[in-house]
């Protein structure tokens, strides 16, 4: 790992100033992606700005939204009674990310900012029509994810929270693990809420998370696993790697969608 100076600001304004002070300054949240990247010398930050002191952890439930602070750990989302009640599929998703040790450090803000094409959270955020709140603006999920490891975030912009609109009538996530990495080979989040019926797929797309609109239309007409059983996803836009061909992933999308719909009840 290349060396850097470590900073732990205690306000969002100070963190933004530190990140803006240097083109090679980088934010650090749970470190469960960033530290492995640093170990491989794939990144050479001058300053590492730890966001842990900003007070951005916490979950709050109001009448029409569930708001999760950017620094909230996966384990805390999974264990939250409020999340389990309001959006059970989201709590279950968080409880299935990586392993206990990853969930004790990794954060929702870090996962979304990273936008790994095999990450779990992007599918929930997109399917639930959530809004990503930063130090300067609010970004709709549909505009936030812009391809593999690419988001609408500008340099030095910090996610402060994620707001999920309520009420959510149905939510569930089904994930086919890549057993070595524990990421999603294919993951499908299904939801019925203020954003309508939505189906979001992670792990499979060449451009990261995407909505399966044919399935959304079928489920809007009739919410049942059978409604999507005959719907296929064109393999041409899907990833192919040593873990699975595009055709295999296309097949898994339908299987995982059916499981998620069944789990959502």
């Amino acid at each position, binding site marked *: 790992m290349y*060396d850097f100076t470590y900073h*732990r600001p205690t306000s969002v304004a100070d963190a933004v100033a530190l990140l803006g002070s240097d083109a090679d300054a980088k934010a*650090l949240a749970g470190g*469960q992606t960033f530290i492995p990247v640093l*170990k491989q010398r794939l990144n050479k930050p001058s300053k590492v700005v730890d966001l842990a002191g900003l007070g951005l952890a916490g979950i709050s439930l109001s009448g029409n939204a569930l708001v999760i602070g950017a620094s909230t750990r996966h384990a805390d989302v999974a264990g939250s009674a409020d999340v389990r009640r309001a959006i059970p599929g989201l709590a279950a998703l968080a409880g299935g990310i990586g392993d206990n040790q990853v969930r004790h450090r990794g954060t929702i803000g870090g996962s979304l900012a990273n936008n790994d094409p095999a990450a779990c959270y992007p599918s929930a955020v997109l399917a639930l029509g959530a809004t990503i709140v930063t130090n300067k603006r609010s970004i709709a999920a549909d505009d936030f994810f812009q391809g593999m490891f690419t988001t609408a975030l500008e340099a030095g912009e910090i996610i402060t929270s994620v707001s999920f609109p309520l009420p959510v009538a149905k939510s569930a996530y089904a994930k086919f693990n890549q057993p070595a990495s524990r990421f999603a080979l294919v993951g499908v989040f299904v939801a019925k809420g203020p954003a309508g019926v939505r189906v979001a797929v992670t792990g499979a797309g060449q451009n990261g998370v995407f909505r399966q609109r044919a399935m959304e239309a079928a489920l809007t007409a009739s919410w049942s696993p059978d409604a999507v059983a005959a719907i296929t996803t064109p393999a041409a836009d899907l990833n192919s790697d040593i873990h699975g061909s595009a055709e295999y992933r296309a097949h898994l999308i339908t299987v995982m969608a059916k499981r998620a719909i069944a789990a959502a009840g």
Partner: protein
Amino acid sequence: MPQVTLTVNGKRHTVAVEGRTLLVEVLREKLGLTGTHIGCDTSQCGACVVHVNGDSVKSCTMLALQAEGAEVTTIEGLAKPDGTLHPMQEMFREHHALQCGYCTPGMVMSAIDLVAKHPEGLTEREIREGLDGNLCRCTGYHNIVKAVAAAWPLMHQKAMPQAAE
């Protein structure tokens, strides 16, 4: 050079580190606590698991400076001063849950955290999933799962509830 102050196994230390120094490097190289192992470069094996403020974490995937003010427990901090093993260590011994022993410190630390956080009981499947972050190349996991199940009643000082079996 920056300094980090942390409490390890009940003892406070202040150590000079670089920005890039990992928690596991402080434990092994600065404090001589080599029971915590390093098995991979990719945050996947769990050989390095310790407890930080009561949660199991991979000490290879945390900067030392992120542990400022933290309470850390390593495998060396489990046995009593007279050498009596922690019930989890004792059950690993009793059930032959280790062969080469490389994964064992991390496995034990993860298992203690798992059992402590499940006072309602653990099924075999929950134990296996709960140890997802710890890889063992020797045992085939079977005896590890048995040891963890056997440690549950000792740690909670009651029988494992029926419902969880």
